[in-house]
């Protein structure tokens, strides 16, 4: 099981703050692809991914128990 945290417009689009996915192992790239298709998420090409509170790259592997966050372009300040 992996947890996916959602923020900003992605949270609005799905209508939930987090998803629990029954996945044991997946690359960042494949997870983004899957989520984009399953939930029709917008602007995923500019969305970054953090795994356990660290920015991750496309080829990084996410494993069961990890907390993933989808990070759209940030706009703090």
């Amino acid at each position, binding site marked *: 099981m992996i947890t996916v945290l959602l923020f900003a417009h992605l949270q609005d689009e799905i209508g939930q703050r987090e998803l629990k996915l029954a996945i044991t192992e997946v690359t960042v790239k494949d997870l983004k692809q899957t989520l984009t298709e399953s939930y029709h998420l917008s*602007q995923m090409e500019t969305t970054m991914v*953090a795994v356990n509170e660290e*920015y991750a790259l496309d080829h990084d592997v996410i494993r069961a128990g990890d907390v993933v966050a989808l990070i759209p372009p940030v706009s703090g300040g």
Partner: protein
Amino acid sequence: MKEKLFEITSEPIKVDQLIKKVESRNAGAMTTFIGTVREWTKGKRTLYLEYQAYIPMAEKMLKTIGDEIQRKWPDTKIAITHRIGRLDISDIAVCIAVSSPHRKAAYEANEYAIERIKQIVPIWKKEHWENGETWIGDQLENVAYPTGKPKMEGDNE
């Protein structure tokens, strides 16, 4: 109460508290940057903003910025607080305080911090207008809105 140098809060920011955090007998200069909620952006009137953060990671990234500043300007002390939740016009969204033996480093480090916040810290703002709302998605503010205009209620998207 344990003092946090890098903090996300839903409470109003008290600038004097940030200044206190970076006080030092070695300091000859202190700079504060105060980011406030602007009413007019490119001809559009904002009613209020709503900030959201991935709090634990945002605090971690603020700390990362602090570490970067320590390496670039070794004698500085820095504290950053960013507020989340609903903010009205003129409310303080972010405050950065830097102290340093000399003023140049205090100015430079402070500017560096706000630029980095806009690049790496997972905080998002949603602008609410009289006739619509949208999450602002461009951290460098080159484009005010992703679609080139605010999303209006009734727009088909």
